[in-house]
């Protein structure tokens, strides 16, 4: 089992300057911890030997970093133009009522966080949503319901970052 520290040190070896490794390190740390609270940011700074403020400023500037906890499954629905033109708004309303939360919210059991995001770069299959590592495209209400049912069934085991990893045998995780 490779530790977080070892993974971060491996990633840092790709750069002549440790500061460049902050972003990869935060991505690794977030996979391990789910989000990036203060003590994790300080640990990253310590591992890389960089200023703490450098780590904090990146963790709060880039949208993929979460300094607050998010649900185990983070539903990220694109609502940019191409998805909007294919009725992503209807899907948002449906998700809000199915989960009983508003966008930006997390269900009480901590399973689902619902967000809208900017373009995911998969407009050929709009409307599209990212959950963990995977994209789900050509969505309609039926497909959303089927996906929610699968995620509920998975809740007792799979991990939040990559819920369906078992369905892709042989594919390496990138961090």
């Amino acid at each position: 089992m490779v530790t977080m520290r070892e993974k971060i040190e491996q990633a840092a070896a790709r750069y002549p300057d440790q500061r460049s490794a902050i972003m990869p390190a935060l991505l690794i740390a977030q996979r391990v911890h789910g989000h990036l609270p203060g003590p994790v940011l300080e640990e990253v700074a310590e591992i890389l030997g960089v200023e703490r403020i450098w780590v904090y400023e990146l963790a709060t500037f880039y949208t993929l970093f979460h300094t607050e906890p998010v649900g185990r499954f983070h539903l990220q629905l694109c609502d940019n133009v191409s998805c909007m033109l294919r009725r992503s708004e209807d899907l948002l309303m449906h998700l809000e009522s199915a989960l009983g939360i508003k966008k930006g919210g997390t269900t009480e059991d901590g399973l689902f966080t619902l967000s809208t995001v900017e373009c995911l770069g998969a407009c050929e299959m709009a409307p599209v949503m990212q959950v963990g590592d995977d994209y789900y495209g050509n969505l309609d209400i039926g497909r959303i319901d089927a996906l929610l049912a699968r995620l509920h069934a998975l809740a007792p085991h799979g991990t939040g970052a990559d819920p369906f990893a078992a369905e892709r045998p042989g594919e390496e995780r990138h961090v």
Partner: protein
Amino acid sequence: MYEPVLLKNVNMPDGHLLSTYEAGGGYRGLAKALKEFTPDEIVELVKRSNLRGRGGAGFPTGMKWSFVPKRADRPKYLCCNADEGEPGTFKDRIVMERDPHQLIEGMAISAYAIGAEVAYVYIRGEYVLAIRRLEQAIAEAKAKGYLGTGILGSDFNFVVHVHCGAGAYICGEETAMLDSLEGKRAQPRLKPPFPAVAGLYASPTVINNVETLVCVPHIVARGADWFRGIGPEKSPGPKLYCVSGQVRKPGLYELPMGIPLRELVEDHAGGPQPDRKIKAVIPGGVSAPVIPEQGLDVGMDFDSLAAVGSMLGSAGVIVVDDTTCMVKIATRIIEFFHHESCGKCTPCREGLNWVVKVLRRIEAGAGAPGDMEQLDMLCKGIFGNTFCALGDGAAMGLRASLAHFREEFVAHIEERRCPFH
């Protein structure tokens, strides 16, 4: 019938594997480059091909390479801009997911040409599958001697590293990308110095888009004249078009540069959905000014689109039909730019915030007399006054919407409601 070149492997099963790539002639361009060309000859070849950058600006690639100083006391870097974030654009993702070796070969030849031994692929963090496939492909290429030291028996050494972004559209701006790679908040730099002279770690750096780099092996393998023979002479080559929105067959299409927008949308992408009419098309991602239906006969290349006041940009073609409100689209686009503004300069950071407020109230039926003039004034205050092209893109797009669809905006204000609801 146009025969795809860039997407040849993309539709094949296992197109992402080295064996598939090699079977289709892959890495022969690299072998030829290392054996038959000096680095300067590759730069000249790419100059003669008239390849222009596919990331959006259309800058001649060979010329960009030639700005790198021949002798430098610092290492040179190649960066691949794979931070594809322009709404409506998905070409680079598909290429990296399904044919990553094509990118690696393109990077290896380009690095040889500019004298770089290290490259970083800056790829957006959401593209998990593309990241995985690219990392697998790099490992395969290393094992087969296409990357590493003494590549294919030459004295050329080259390694590629993948660097994941973390969700910031501004990283598509090349100097912001460099700051991000250096571990800083992504904000554009003042130019000069240009990256070719002082880029990553203040070293000479070339930044090219994924699609630009994947053109390179084909230029080496087939020659500059072949490339120049496709499409308009000043803006030639095979081109990837991303078609999305209210159209029957959204998808990625490879066709010659310069194909009429109407042919792309109506023939290749199947035209509008049943009982609808096309109202407008955004030809190059949301930064590109919208073109009303009557203007669709324009050619899809850098110069033809610039001549009609729009731009090819990333060739993210978004089709809008007659059931859709243009104010709503304009509002969503400006919301995007406002969200992605890096905050460095005032006209973009504050101006877009103000524009969003005005557009939202117009769309909600609460527009005030004078709002149109205020939007015109805000566009004037933003355009040409921002640090980078983000603010310009936002203002140019809004100006086109206001010019072509002014009556829709005015109807919202006068009727105090959205006529499409």
